[in-house]
């Protein structure tokens, strides 16, 4: 099977879908690989490395798209690009299937099997393909570091001849994959770390990283079988905001990670709370690009509001593009490998496979994912 | 003084001493120690010897002789088995 990997188009995107090591593995498994020239430069992988791995470098992007039996990439394609693909080809990338209805329809109509990386189920066995997790984990690290370089203070405590510098406090709202890594990173740097999450099961996990869990009694909350948080009632939302207020005022860094995949993120930090913060404090809004947890955050930008810096850059893992590429590439490889038939040397989409069941959106000219199908029709 | 007094003291002291001797024994030594002290309990051989050799009566002699044989098994076997166990233990300890 011919695997094609086009360059990413989004501006500033430095990550790459497949790194040379994984390209080599795929080739060893029997695949042929064509990449667009200059594919890995953003993460420091030269074309030569891909050639060494056995891939062919092609300057013509359209050719890459048109030839491929499998297309591997990070961002969703344009409608245009879908038109260039072979019917029956497999396209794997982020798709944002809850919102990109026209894209899904285009896939269906073109007969392309579209796999959405967001829809990989969150079972223990599928973790190795779970790009949301792998990238969120890096995001947690990046967000803390970005906050740190913006903060006019240091995180750790220091007792020095020139007086004692008190430790900074970091407050992490949402202790999912990104939140936990943020807790770990801030803790490493010596900050006092406090965290909150609506799922009370994570309190133990926060403590297992040396963080303090902020106790706010919201009454009954819960999580889906995939571990996602359920939405709060309006009453609960109010309780939460009230309960966080004091902690936010006392914190030097606030990081919100309640992205809530598939839903609009809740507002967790209001303008009012921002006014209550110390000048120079920093807020990182992980969800800025999809609507934001923080009032006044601007997607893709860092702004200063009332003396408080609000970082809403987004695409966090792109800051550590090389490692992010390695992880994403590994996720893709594992996914292809899951469907790989070693005898025929091709990827087969077996709708009995519980992992593929979850993430294949269109297949054989149909929308096969129930949730998306219901949403679109 | 009477024998009984001495006996009482000796018994008392021996029992206390027996209690005190065994303090904290690693689990690996439980079986060897059991086996080793079992060999000591073969001391009854000494009694058997007197019974077998004193020629008090035929029955006593027969009983004594059987007792000697039995006790000797206990003593010889006990010490040898213990030694084998401990030899193995040593080797393992020495190997690392």
């Amino acid at each position: 099977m011919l695997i094609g990997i086009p360059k990413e188009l989004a501006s500033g995107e430095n990550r790459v879908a497949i790194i040379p090591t994984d390209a080599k593995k795929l080739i060893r498994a029997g695949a042929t690989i064509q990449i667009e020239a200059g594919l890995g430069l953003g993460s420091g992988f030269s074309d030569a490395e891909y050639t060494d791995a056995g891939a062919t470098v092609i300057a013509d992007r359209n050719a890459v798209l048109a030839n491929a039996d499998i297309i591997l990439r990070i961002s969703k394609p344009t409608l245009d690009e879908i038109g260039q693909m072979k019917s029956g080809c497999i396209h794997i990338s982020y798709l944002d299937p809850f919102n990109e209805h026209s894209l899904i329809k285009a896939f269906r109509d073109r007969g392309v099997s579209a796999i959405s990386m967001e829809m990989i189920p969150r079972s223990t066995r599928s973790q190795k393909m779970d790009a949301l997790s792998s990238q969120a984990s890096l995001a947690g690290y990046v967000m803390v570091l970005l906050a740190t370089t913006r903060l006019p203070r240091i995180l750790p405590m220091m007792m020095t001849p020139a007086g004692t510098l008190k430790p900074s406090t970091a407050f992490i709202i949402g202790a999912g994959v990104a939140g936990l890594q943020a807790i770990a990173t801030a803790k490493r740097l010596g900050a006092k770390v406090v965290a909150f999450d609506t799922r009370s099961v994570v309190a133990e996990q926060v403590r297992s990283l040396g963080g303090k869990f902020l106790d706010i009694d919201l009454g009954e909350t819960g999580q889906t079988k995939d571990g996602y948080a359920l939405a709060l009632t309006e009453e609960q939302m109010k309780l939460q905001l009230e309960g966080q207020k004091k902690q936010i005022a006392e914190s030097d860094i606030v990081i919100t990670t309640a992205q809530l995949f598939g839903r609009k993120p809740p507002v967790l930090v209001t303008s009012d709370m921002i006014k209550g913060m110390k000048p120079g404090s920093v807020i990182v809004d992980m969800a800025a690009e999809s609507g934001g947890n923080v009032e006044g955050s601007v997607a893709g930008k860092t702004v200063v509001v009332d003396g408080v810096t609000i970082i809403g850059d987004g695409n966090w893992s792109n800051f550590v593009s090389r490692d992010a590429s390695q992880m994403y590439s590994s996720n893709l490889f594992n996914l292809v490998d899951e469907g790989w038939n070693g005898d025929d040397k091709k990827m087969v989409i077996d709708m009995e496979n519980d992992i593929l069941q979850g993430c294949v959106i269109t297949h054989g000219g149909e929308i096969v994912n129930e949730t998306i199908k219901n949403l679109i029709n | 003084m009477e024998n009984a007094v001495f006996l009482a003291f000796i018994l008392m002291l021996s029992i206390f001493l027996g209690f005190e001797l065994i303090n904290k024994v690693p689990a690996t030594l439980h079986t060897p120690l059991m086996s080793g002290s079992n060999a000591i309990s073969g001391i009854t051989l000494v009694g058997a010897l007197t019974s077998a050799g004193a020629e008090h009566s035929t029955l006593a002699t027969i009983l004594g002789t059987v007792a000697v044989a039995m006790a000797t098994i206990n003593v010889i076997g006990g010490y040898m088995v213990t030694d084998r166990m401990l030899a193995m233990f040593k080797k393992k300890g020495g190997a690392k």
Partner: protein
Amino acid sequence: MGIELLVNMAYVVAAVLFIFGLKMLGSPATARKGNLVSALGMFIAVIVTLLDQSIIDFKWILAGVVVGGAIGALVARRVEMTGMPEMVALFNGFGGVASLFVGWAALYDMHDAHTFVLITIVLSILIGGVTFSGSMVAWGKLSERISGKAIVFGGQRVFNILLIIAIIVSAVMFTLSTGPATSIYLYLVIGLSLLLGIMLVIPIGGADMPVVISLLNSYSGLAACAAGIAINNIILIVAGALVGASGIILTQIMCKAMNRSLSNVLFSGFSAVSASGTAAKIEGEAKAMTAEDAYYVLEAAASVVIVPGYGMAVAQAQHVVKELQELLEKNGAEVVYAIHPVAGRMPGHMNVLLAEADVSYDLLLEMDAVNPRMETFDVAIVIGANDVVNPAAREMEGSPIYGMPVINVDMARNVFVMKRSMASGFAGIDNPLFFKENTRMLFGDAKEMLGNIIKAFS
């Protein structure tokens, strides 16, 4: 009188050697030498006894010694290492029967039928008999000649009580009677004591036999002691009492190592009749272990792999883990960590914690690097991990984690699992690892448990 004094002073020396021998047997470094010391004591005691002027005829002695010695030596040399405990049971039984015979023979050596002497005679016969038959049952159970299961029947308790009453009555009658009646009561005491030994041991399960043997060993010491009083031989008294007392302590130590009480060991069989005992069965195979026993294994291990999981994080045990690692290394062992990619609750969870404890990166191995050489590890220590070492992922199709690669700790020679209970982990499924032959559970908070093991490295 000169000779008698000499003999007795030699007995003092023998007793001293026994004392040193027992003491030395209690510590690994000196145990083997201790056994030799005690054997030397025995040798001295036997030799000087032969000097005793009351011994007139050596031919029977010679016969007994040759036959017994040959059998003992042969058996001791032949026995498989795995058969050791049953061999001890057998030897112990022979010791018991010897005491029984010595006591019996003393009957015919009595100058005056002193009640005190009669009491000691009956005691030596009684204890010797119980030791003998009890040891034989224990031997049978261990060598699987008798079912290793606890054999129980209704009314057993009542029967035993009646038996004990009968023994007491015949013993009392024996000491009071004279003439031919003596023999009858004598035979009654012998027979009943043999029966008692059997009754006491059959309701105990095979797994508890070591404790029973240790207890019977203590009895055989007491039997020798009683025989000693009967024939007025002081070395029998002292050595017997020493063994009797130290045997009791050893028995108690062994019970403690099994986390049981002695009475629980001896009498749990009875209660098994009433409790149906099926629910207990499933868990029954998971074997618990104390930190101290874990230490003895670790102390002898040359290579150890540590597998941390979420429980290490919860217990915040990373610093203690590092300490154990250093101790093991100082002890000459190779130590590595096997990190499963999904251990913990976030990617890199274990890395964060182990870096905090300053564990060198070079020691952290990926699952794939460790699994192929898992057989070479003497011990795998699983610290608060569960799903990531669950062999069900390999073995049990249909399990929710079937197909996920796990760290195959069950292939290591010994597996120690530290967790607080038999509870399941994140995936909520049972873990067959806990029931494997080579697995031992160290129940408790990981940090405390590790602390206890570290303490044992004195």
